């Protein structure tokens, strides 16, 4: 019996990447809370937080510190293990989704080794994202149920039915993209866009459906019914305090970040730099990686801004409106989009 044969370099490389991405997710989530407040203020002709540090840039740190030092309350009537499991699940599922996203062009070392800027380029790629998103419902449901509060439970059930309903049009919109690429691998989806142009050109309707569904999946306004303050007090995290509440809130922002990244990858060419042929620049691979990464981040920031912009423009939907929109409007539209895409692809093949 001898020790396991393990490629330690691979493990080192991947764990560096994983920790980098997790750190990045936390950082972006923190500053999205700041951006949320700033954008809200600007859209309402206000100034927003500007006390902590210059322009208030330390505001998220102050918020985080506050959440950390708040008293941790676990209601007596709650189901304790599940009460703790809820936010943990929400956070885990939010962070897991980032595994299959290609963050930049592969980095080639001097020795000629190729280091992919992607944790796992697995065969089922985007399907994996879907499976994790579908599990993400449990964070909300368990938390809401374990609080033993009828408002929390109502919110949790709303949130779950909303997320399950909007997964359908999201998947259908995605299928049209998969028709075009012929692969579920994220790297191949990006590669196809670099060759043939971004999918947004061919799939504007599909993108809009996907975007609306992403809003619903992240529980963002206009679909933030699980957190409807004025109907359900505070939603599924009503009984939570301190860092558990922080986990729920953070998970929402990480979800926003990851869904922006997924949208950028699926429809906006991922790390592709628009309008130029970057291969002709002859840059070394390190700088290519850096540039393509920042291009992806720019696209993600744009989507995050749109998320915030929508939040401060559109009022919350009513629950029946939400369900009507999902089942009666988006699913037929997504089916139509899928069929048209399939027909056009068949015609072009002939």
């Amino acid at each position: 019996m001898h020790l396991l044969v393990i490629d330690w370099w691979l493990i080192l490389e991947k764990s560096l990447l994983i920790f980098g991405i997790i750190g990045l997710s936390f950082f972006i989530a923190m500053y999205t809370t700041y951006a949320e407040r700033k954008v809200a203020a600007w859209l309402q002709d206000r100034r927003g937080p500007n006390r902590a540090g210059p322009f208030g840039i330390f505001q998220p740190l102050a918020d985080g510190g506050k959440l950390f030092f708040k008293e941790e309350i676990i209601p007596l009537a709650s189901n304790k293990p599940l009460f703790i499991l809820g936010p943990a699940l929400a956070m885990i599922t939010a962070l897991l989704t980032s595994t299959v996203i290609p963050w930049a062009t592969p980095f080639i070392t001097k020795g000629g080794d190729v280091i992919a800027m992607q944790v796992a380029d697995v065969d089922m790629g985007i399907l994996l994202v879907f499976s994790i998103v579908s599990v993400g419902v449990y964070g909300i449901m368990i938390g809401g149920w374990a609080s033993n509060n009828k408002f929390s439970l109502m919110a949790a059930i709303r949130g779950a039915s909303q997320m399950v309903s909007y997964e359908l049009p999201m998947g259908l919109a995605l299928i049209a993209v998969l028709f075009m690429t012929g692969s579920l691998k994220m790297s191949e989806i990006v590669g196809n866009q670099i060759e043939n142009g971004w999918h947004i050109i061919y799939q504007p309707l599909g993108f809009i459906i996907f975007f609306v569904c992403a809003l619903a999946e992240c529980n963002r306004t206009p679909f933030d019914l699980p957190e409807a303050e004025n109907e359900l007090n505070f939603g599924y995290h009503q009984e939570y305090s301190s860092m558990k509440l922080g986990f729920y809130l953070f998970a929402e922002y990480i979800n926003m970040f990851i869904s922006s990244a997924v949208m950028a990858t699926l429809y906006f060419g991922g790390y592709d730099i628009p309008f130029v042929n970057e291969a002709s620049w002859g840059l070394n691979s390190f700088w290519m990686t850096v540039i393509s990464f920042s291009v992806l981040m720019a696209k993600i920031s744009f989507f995050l801004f749109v998320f915030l912009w929508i939040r401060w423009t559109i009022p919350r939907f009513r629950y029946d409106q939400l369900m009507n929109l999902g089942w009666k409007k988006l699913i037929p539209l997504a089916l139509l989009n899928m069929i048209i895409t399939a027909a056009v692809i068949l015609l072009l093949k002939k």
Partner: protein
Amino acid sequence: MTITITQILFWILSVAALFSALMVITSKNPVHSVLWLIATFFSISGHYILLSAQFLAVVNIIVYAGAIMVLFLFVIMLMNLNRETEPQKNRWIKMAGAIAGGCLLLVLVASLKNVESASTIEDVKGGDVGFIKRLGKELFSTYVVPFEISSILFLSAMVGAVVIGKKE
């Protein structure tokens, strides 16, 4: 004898699957049962990945953990079932059930004795039968008719559920 990562993972996942399956039938609280069943499905998905059936692993999570179990959880939460409302069987019946199940397991495992157990499953190059491209091709060529029929089954199940669940 060498121990590979696959073997270690097999044992971990097997123990996890059996433990959580046992917890499903022994938990008093139905919500706990549902959550343990989800854990079972996750470990079975892990087994699928070990058997390089990636597509089935993901479909298992999406369909079972992401849709079916959400439905179960939904129903249990809406009915407000908990430890107190849980109907309990008589202790003797429980014991009889456990013994009957154990006997079944014993008989089935004993019947394995006569089977040649030379067959093994190893990871081989090109063993990508569970990959999405291969399965997809097979599904949409050889099995396209059952596939379409299953979609009709789905539709009828949906209609049936709505009709049953509708209040008169």
